[in-house]
């Protein structure tokens, strides 16, 4: 394993650097107008000069705040409704009907309606982000609640657990893996919704930054923004994956380290 792992590590760096080199070479040949197709150096240049750091941080901050807010509310609502629907099946049947009917509509399709309802302010964007998180979370939570190993429930009942204690101390923890999956999917949807909503209807945030750059013809800034969004997305997903899921749900992963 040591030998092929070493080669593999070398290969991953090689792949990445090769791509960068190809990009740099293509831009240097000036086959395409450099103001439309900037090379890596052009992007770095734009990053350093065209977007002052404090302005950038402001936009990033606003974007993250929006996603954070929408995601939190969406997750909270999703978990509560999911758990309730799974625990009280009659209620679940009734609650799930409108949810399942609305779910096929992509959150982004709500943008015009959200604007009509809430104007161009923060709340309309947070609504879209909320929708992005809500549906995966509520679906996965419900699925988790419904698909619990019945043996676990019987074992808990034999040990004397009933009612709310059964729910909170056994049923919900047993559904946590599914809830976590829903949250992870919900986060990536929320993030995508944030970018789209900011592109289409905002005057602050990362999406706006990119749209603005296009109007000003600063292609390099667009590329910078796109890459930045990708990096932030990766980082936040990594944080959720590693910290929350691996730590809190260590029991879910069986076997050797």
């Amino acid at each position: 394993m040591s030998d092929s792992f070493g080669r593999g590590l070398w290969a991953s760096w090689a792949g990445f650097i090769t791509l960068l080199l190809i990009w740099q070479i293509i831009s240097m040949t000036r086959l395409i107008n450099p103001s439309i197709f900037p090379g890596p150096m052009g992007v770095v240049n734009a990053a350093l000069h065209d977007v002052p750091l404090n302005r950038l941080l402001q936009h990033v901050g606003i974007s993250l705040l929006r996603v954070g807010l929408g995601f939190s509310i969406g997750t909270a609502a999703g978990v509560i409704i999911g758990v309730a629907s799974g625990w009280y099946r009659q209620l679940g049947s009734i609650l799930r009907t409108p949810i399942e009917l609305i779910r096929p509509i992509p959150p982004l399709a709500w943008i015009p309606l959200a604007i009509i309802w809430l104007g161009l302010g923060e709340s309309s964007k947070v609504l879209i982000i909320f929708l992005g998180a809500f549906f995966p979370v509520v679906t996965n939570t419900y699925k988790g609640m419904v698909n619990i190993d019945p043996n676990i429930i019987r074992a808990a009942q034999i040990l004397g657990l009933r009612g709310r204690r059964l729910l909170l101390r056994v049923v919900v923890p047993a559904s946590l893996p599914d809830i976590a999956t829903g949250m992870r999917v919900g986060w990536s949807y929320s993030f995508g919704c944030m970018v789209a909503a900011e592109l289409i209807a905002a005057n602050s945030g990362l999406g706006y930054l990119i749209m603005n750059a296009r109007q000003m013809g600063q292609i390099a800034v667009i590329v910078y923004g796109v890459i930045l969004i990708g990096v932030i997305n990766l980082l936040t997903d990594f944080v959720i994956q590693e910290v929350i899921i691996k730590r809190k749900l260590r029991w879910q992963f069986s076997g050797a380290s």
Partner: protein
Amino acid sequence: MSFRNSDIEVVVRHVSKQFPGEDPDVGLALHNVNFTVSTNEFVTIVGRSGCGKSTMLNIIAGLLTPTEGEVLINGRLIDGPGLDRGMVFQYSGLFPWLTAIENIEFGPRNVGKSKAERRALAQGLIELVHLKGFENKYPRELSGGMQQRVAIARAMAMDPEILLMDEPFGSLDQLTREDMQRELLRIWESRKKTVLFVTHGIIEAIYLSDRILVFNPNPGFVRKEFVVDLPRPRQKSSPDFMRYYEEIYEAIH
């Protein structure tokens, strides 16, 4: 029944297998394994889980190469998998996208047999394993025992000299397993083959084999060899059978 030297088909000589990159104390699966198998003999390798018996079988199959030592079949060094050896796996390994008969035809199709030839050959094998009527079922529609019967037929479609079986009945329930043991003996007696069988069930080994090799775990090597000198069909409750059982149990522990 004894086997003469000139009938020796498989020779395993000084075979060791070290899995790369692992801690040498852990990755040494086999160390200096030596044994032979004669033509049409039924030999079983018995041992606890993890004693290297599957690794040994895979080396003989040609799917793994030994770190040291060699395996000879009919006097020739093996070089990868070959049509002289067929294999049956624990979890049938049947291709789920093919029906039972298509699975059996898979091998002949690879070597270019015509459609009619393949079909006739496969049909004959279906009847041999008593699965007539189930030719066009997909594996998921068949029970565990039926799947293993198809797996056996599939391995025999290439008419190999040697049949390698890696805990083929391990995933079946007890009753089906006992049925399959009888089935296997019946098939073996009608189409004589050399069989190398791997299991961790002592009773199964005694019931089926001419000879039993007890493998020692970590690293694997042949700890003791037993010749089962009982006429078939064997009674699992007979005193002779029980005697073998106790001796082999001792040898394993």
